[in-house]
């Protein structure tokens, strides 16, 4: 099929190695295909309001690509990405989906970021028999789009109860108030959190849903304060989580704050400054963990970018390593990826420890979860003390 505007933004290998590869191929016939990159498509936001997440993905991707290609690539062929900017907009993600499906060189697709952008493209990937690997798509219906929709995103039915259990059982909250992003992710998490809290015998005294672009939470916090909670549970991302934490102190609320693991980012501490001191959270990895894959990831990330990795970096990194393992074990056609995902076992992962898919849901269960808190401007392991002394 023709592709009139395709300038694939192939990041690896460089033009020189491609030329070199082509030259060598001309000399030695038959090995020509060996130098062609194994190409994965990425549909995600590089511009527009969600561009920060696309930028975080890219860091994780590039780090993982280096690792894969440094280790011999995929049976001698380099692994490469074609990153197309969707602006997190369904109109553009469906066009990108047609572009990827129509390009036989692309053997699997990653993304998009939000549910509207990702799930609008699902029918096209499903009919084109190209795996759509939604690595941040926690929407419960995402993988129901068809058997070519796979996801290693954290499952809210796991994350949310774990956080609430931490807040209630370990930290001792009895009357939490919940503030949540009013998105598909936030709403699903909130519903699960309320269920869990009830099951654990706690009373949720208030729930407040806010829009992602909101910045002012003072009046929301008055409402929360008047419900007399003994702690706050935040189902937030890092930027809004930091804003809430700052305004909490202004509103005269001194109760402990327990935030979803999605705030695990150095940006949370930078933006929240002294107001996030003492915030409790959970993380799927942390730099002092002894696990080899975590140590490797954190060390290499720091060396390359001179900053601490966050959750989105880790999802992106994990995903490339997972797909590389599938490609190495099961082959490099589209169908190989689809079949291989069902059969792959025990891939080392920063988030999960070991990855294997539940073939019925096409999701991964059993993310690692560590209880953390912010102390001295850093995320550290929880000190084991309850936030509210038991009576």
């Amino acid at each position, binding site marked *: *099929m*023709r*592709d*009139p*505007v395709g*300038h694939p*933004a192939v990041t690896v290998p460089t033009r020189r190695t491609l030329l070199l590869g082509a030259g060598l191929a001309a000399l030695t016939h038959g090995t020509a295909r060996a130098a062609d990159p194994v190409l994965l498509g990425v549909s995600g936001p590089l*511009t527009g*309001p969600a*561009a*920060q997440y*696309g*930028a*975080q993905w890219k860091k994780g991707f590039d780090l993982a690509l280096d690792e894969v290609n440094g280790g011999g690539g995929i049976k001698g062929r380099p692994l490469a990405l074609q*990153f197309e*900017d969707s602006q997190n907009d*369904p*109109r553009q993600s469906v*066009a990108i989906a*047609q*572009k990827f*499906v*129509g390009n036989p060189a692309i053997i699997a697709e990653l993304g998009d970021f939000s*549910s*509207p952008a990702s*799930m*609008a493209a699902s*029918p*096209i990937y499903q*009919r084109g028999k190209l795996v759509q690997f939604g690595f941040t798509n926690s*929407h419960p219906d995402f993988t*129901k*789009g068809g058997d070519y929709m796979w996801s290693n995103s954290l499952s809210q039915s796991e994350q949310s109860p774990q956080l609430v259990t931490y807040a209630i059982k370990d930290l001792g909250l009895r009357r939490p108030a919940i503030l949540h992003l*009013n*998105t*598909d992710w*936030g*709403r*699903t998490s909130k519903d699960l959190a309320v269920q869990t809290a009830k099951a654990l015998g706690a009373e949720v005294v208030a729930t*407040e*849903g806010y*829009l992602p*672009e*909101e*910045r*002012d939470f*003072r*009046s929301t916090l*008055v*409402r929360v304060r008047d419900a007399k909670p003994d702690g706050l549970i935040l189902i937030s991302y890092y*930027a809004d989580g930091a*804003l809430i934490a*700052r305004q909490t102190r*202004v*509103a*005269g609320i001194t109760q402990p704050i327990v935030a979803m693991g999605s705030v695990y980012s150095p*940006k949370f501490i*930078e*933006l929240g*400054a002294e107001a996030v001191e003492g915030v409790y959270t959970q993380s799927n990895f942390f730099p002092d963990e002894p696990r080899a894959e975590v140590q490797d990831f954190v060390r290499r990330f720091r060396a390359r970018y001179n900053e601490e990795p966050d959750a989105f970096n880790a999802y992106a990194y994990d995903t490339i390593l997972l797909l590389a393992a599938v490609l190495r074990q099961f082959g490099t056609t589209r169908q190989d990826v689809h079949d291989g995902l069902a059969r792959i076992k025990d891939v080392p992962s920063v988030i999960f420890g070991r990855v294997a898919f539940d073939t019925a849901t096409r999701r991964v269960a059993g993310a690692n979860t560590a209880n953390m808190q912010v102390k001295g401007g850093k995320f550290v392991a929880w000190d084991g003390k309850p936030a509210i002394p038991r009576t």
Partner: protein
Amino acid sequence: MTWSTWLDYTVNGLVIGNIYALLAVGLALIFGVANLINFAHGSIYTVGAYVGWVCITQLHWPLAATVPAVLLASAVLGVGIERLALRPLHNASRIAPLLATIGISLVLDQITQLVFTPNPRALPSPLPDWRFQIGGGSVGTLDLLILAVGLGTAGALYSFLRFTKMGWAVRATAQDSDAAKQMGVDVNRVNMAVFAIASALGGLSGMLVGMYYNNIDPGMSFDATLKGVVAQIIGGMGNVPGAIAGSLLLGLIESYGIALFGTSYRNLFAFVLLIAILIWRPNGLFASARDLPPEPMTGSFLARGKPVRIPPRALIAIGALAALLPFAGSDYVLQTATNALLYGLLALSLTLVAGTVGMVSLGHAGLLAIGAYASALLAIELAIPVVVAIVLAGIVTAVIGTLLVFPAFRMRGHYVSIATLAIGQIVALVILNWNGLTRGPIGISGIPPLSIGNLPLYDAPQAYWFVLVVVVALALLQARILSSHLGRTWRALRDDDIAARSHGVALDRYKAMAFAFGGFGAGIGGAVTAHLYSYINHETFNAQISVLALTIAILGGLGNISGALLGSALLIGLPELFRGLAEYRMLIYGVALLLLIRLRPQGLLGTA
């Protein structure tokens, strides 16, 4: 609730209103003089915040040096915008500058994002954080500084406009720029001064608000513009002291809305109240009823000039070529073309109500959303065949859309735009909060694909042909109507509604007909989109789409049917063409948009 709790809500409302005031004052100043909603104001605000960030965190300047730097940089930027992008359009048409500010905003936001990365950054306040207890909460030094800056600038502006010669010149220009010119006022200098002052203020407010939240990011401009515009409407457009009062009122309304209904109803409450204010006091709360502003949107607002006549033969040839596209293009090209056609439907609808009838709508995405939800729910819940559901969705959208906009029929000029903007937001917020019907933010998944009976239409060529047939049919129908008695009546309403009414034209009825027809087309567009996407939620049809639709309609030439289709082909196609530029593509797209406006300020194919 106790009195002390109400005191807390009141203080919080005033604190956030205080922040809106900084934005609204700059917007009001520019509107007052240039009669222009400056969509680039939020972008200047963002640039100001980043200049402040560089000075404070990178150069470690004290606040006393940072503030002048921010003021100067923003003022220079404002002057540049006025000189390079707006002044050349001065005599072209009155809607071209509006489009230019949208283009400038796109370019500035993209540059900010490229230079500073899209990541949010902390902008710590160098002020000591003394806090004063009021009721249960507290206010800090920064709150007081923001208040002082807001009141101080409003006071300074008021005395500047009242008591200085330059201020007289500004007010004279605002009232009648041609008459001012005759009296020897250098109108260009006045405009430049106004942009410098308003932009300096915009930049400063970006920095202060950034410090207040300790958080700045390149995406913050759109919402800033939105809130600022709403605040200044409440106070009365172009009314500087009114803008401050309006901002405080908006803050209070939001705060009480949260108190009464909860956080997720905050904006819903505010927008409903905004519409109520517009109905009750169509010139803003603080304008006297007799003091009608000149009508910017009707009559002289539209460019005089002949539309480009495309010979019917050429149109037939273009149609034939379009029908043959599936034999030449890849699925990707077809998908892009389908998207362009769907936006064409939206633009046809908008060009009718905005161009032919003169009601510039900034909430047209709301119609898409109504059509999409109607069709998706009919097809899923009632198992109605998809094609039937799409047609029904068009009818539902026509009815609901017309009823929703009905209160705005008596409004004029920019007030219509703001009312429709509010209505668009209300539609999105109702979808978000009406869980029983719309499933709230979880959205609707598993929407059945396009099909006629048992014939599936989901492959790219079939979907393309289907949408093409719909677009051509509606475009021909619209063209037929425009050349009929009805079309002439609509144009008469636009050009002079008082004359039209004195000839016995019932204003409401004819406007309702235009909205019903436009709503039907847009509703069908939304419905088809829902079946193509299979999943929609409240974010699928956002306010950015309304702005894009207006951009398309103005670029093509308001009221011009071929123009609407050409505009959507360009504005949907160009970002796809620029894909190879990766992060730079939206910047280049913005520059291309500005060049098109510069070359054809009356729209590519002219106003019809």
